[in-house]
Structure formats: C-alpha cells, structure tokens
C-alpha cells in the first residue's frame, strides 16, 4: 500500500464523517441519533462529525422505511456520496419496513434501494446500539485494510 493510501485510510478510520437522512421515519430514531451525537453519549469524541452535505460524508445514517415518494430522492443523495461509502440502517423500519411494511405508500426497508453495511434494529434503536454499529463498521474497515 502506498503512503498516500495509508494516510487516506487512517483519516477515514479515525474520523468518519456522517450524514443523517430520514426516508420517512416517525422521528423516534432521529432523536436517538441526535442523542448519540450530543454530550451524553458524545460519539463526536471519536472524531465522528455530522455533516450537512452528502459530498463530504463517508457514512450515511438512515432512519425510517423508504416511502415511494422518497425513494428516488434517497437514491440520488446516495449517488452523490464519494466512494467508498457506507450505509447504516437505524431502527426496525429502516431494516425491514417495520410496522409500515405493506402500506401503499411504503416501499419497504432501505436495502430495497441502496446496499446496506450494517443493520441496527430497535424501535427506536438505542444510542448504545448506534455506537456499537459504528465501532463494528470501523473495525471491519480496519481488518479489510490489513
């Protein structure tokens, strides 16, 4: 591995930037994501920063089932992220559609639209679970580099 690639990988592992996207959630999981970011759980101390634009983000944290209205827009946002990109599905709805599965306005879980790296079940998912998923994602990334 070249030195340049090593530096890029190091920065990617030490400071993954995330973007939060709501594809039609009830806001329960969104509150837990904010909870994980703010001082009580404080995942920012690991170098994880919430960004406002998909063009700067490495990891997309998605909450909620994909509605038919949102599917096209969601795909477009995902396509704007630079490679390599990862997607975390937060909450039961994002994993499988949850209680909204089978509704005429809902497509299902987010894996019907984009590939998913990690699923975090729970209604809503606890901040500890979100942190656990982030840590697992980073360790897998580290392993794959070796």
């Amino acid at each position, binding site marked *: 591995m070249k030195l340049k690639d090593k530096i890029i990988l190091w920065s990617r592992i030490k400071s993954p930037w995330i973007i939060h996207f709501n594809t039609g959630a009830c806001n329960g999981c969104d509150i837990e994501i904010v909870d994980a970011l703010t001082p009580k759980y404080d995942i920012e101390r690991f170098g994880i920063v919430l960004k406002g634009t998909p063009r700067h983000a490495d990891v997309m944290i998605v909450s909620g089932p994909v*509605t*038919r*209205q949102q599917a096209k827009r969601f795909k477009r946002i995902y396509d704007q992220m630079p490679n390599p990109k990862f997607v975390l599905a937060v909450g039961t709805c994002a994993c499988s559609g949850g209680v909204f599965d*089978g509704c*005429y*306005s809902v*497509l299902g879980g987010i894996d019907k639209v984009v590939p998913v790296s990690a699923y975090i079940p729970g209604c809503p998912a606890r901040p500890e679970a979100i942190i656990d998923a982030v840590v697992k994602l980073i360790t897998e990334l580290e392993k794959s580099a070796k």
Partner: protein
Amino acid sequence: MSELIKEEEILKEIKDKFFEAVENAIIQRKERIWIDVSENKKLEIMKYLKERGYYHLSTISGFDEGEKLGAIYHITNHKIIINLRVRTPKESPVLKSVLPVYPSATSYEREIEDLFGIKIEGLPPGRNYPLPEGFPKGVHPLRKDVKLEELNKMLDEKCAKEE
C-alpha cells in the same frame, strides 16, 4: 343542561339563519358540535362562522360511506370545534373549494382530492400532494373498495417497469 349554553347559542344561531341547509345537528359534548350541511349552502355558513370568530379551519377529513363520499370541515375558534359534514354521491363526487373563505385549506383539499378522489371545484392545478408523482390515475387509496394487495402488486410492477 346549563353547562352547554355557549354551544346551544351558536347552534341556534346557525339553525335560525340557515334552517333549510342544516340537518342532524348534535351537541356531542362540551365544545363539540356536529352538523350535516348541504353542499350549496356550505360556503355561506362558513363565511358566517368566520365572521362570528371561528377563524381557524383546523383540518378537513374525508370519509367513505359506501354510496356516498364526503368531507368533514373542522372549524374552531380555539375553544369550540364545529364539525360541518358535507356529502356527495360516489358516482360523480364534487365539492366546492373553501379557499375563498379559508385560504389555508389548499393542502387539505389536495389531500381529499388525492386520497378520496373527490373533485374539488376551484382548486388551482398542481402536482399530487401526499401521493408520489406518477401514482396511477383513478386510484384513491383511502376509499373502502380499494384492495391493498392488488394496489401494492400494481405499484410494485410499475416500479419494476421503470427500472
């Protein structure tokens, strides 16, 4: 019933003024009034209520009774809620827009149009509001005769075709 003085007062006023257009007026409980009104007097009654301080159209809900479709206008002065129920035949469901009286009703009326298929006369043209763009025309998911499985199948097939 001494505690319903205000409710009876306003109901009596409406009944006296629009006696031919009002039916089945009920005071359900404190601060809740239900009235069936006829379609052509609807706007006049609303105009009158607005002058009387009922300035807020809280929402419009639709319903499907089998042979008739309809809408309930929930109008409030932030104390008493007056629910005006209007019916229209299912074969050619048409309601007049209430935009001249309550300009904030655009989104509610669009919802009624999309989900129940009641044509709203006088609503400016626009895209589907709660339903996604490209939703099959003539399908109104909140009507009772819509079968969810068939609708989902149709939507999935359409989705697959687009990809």
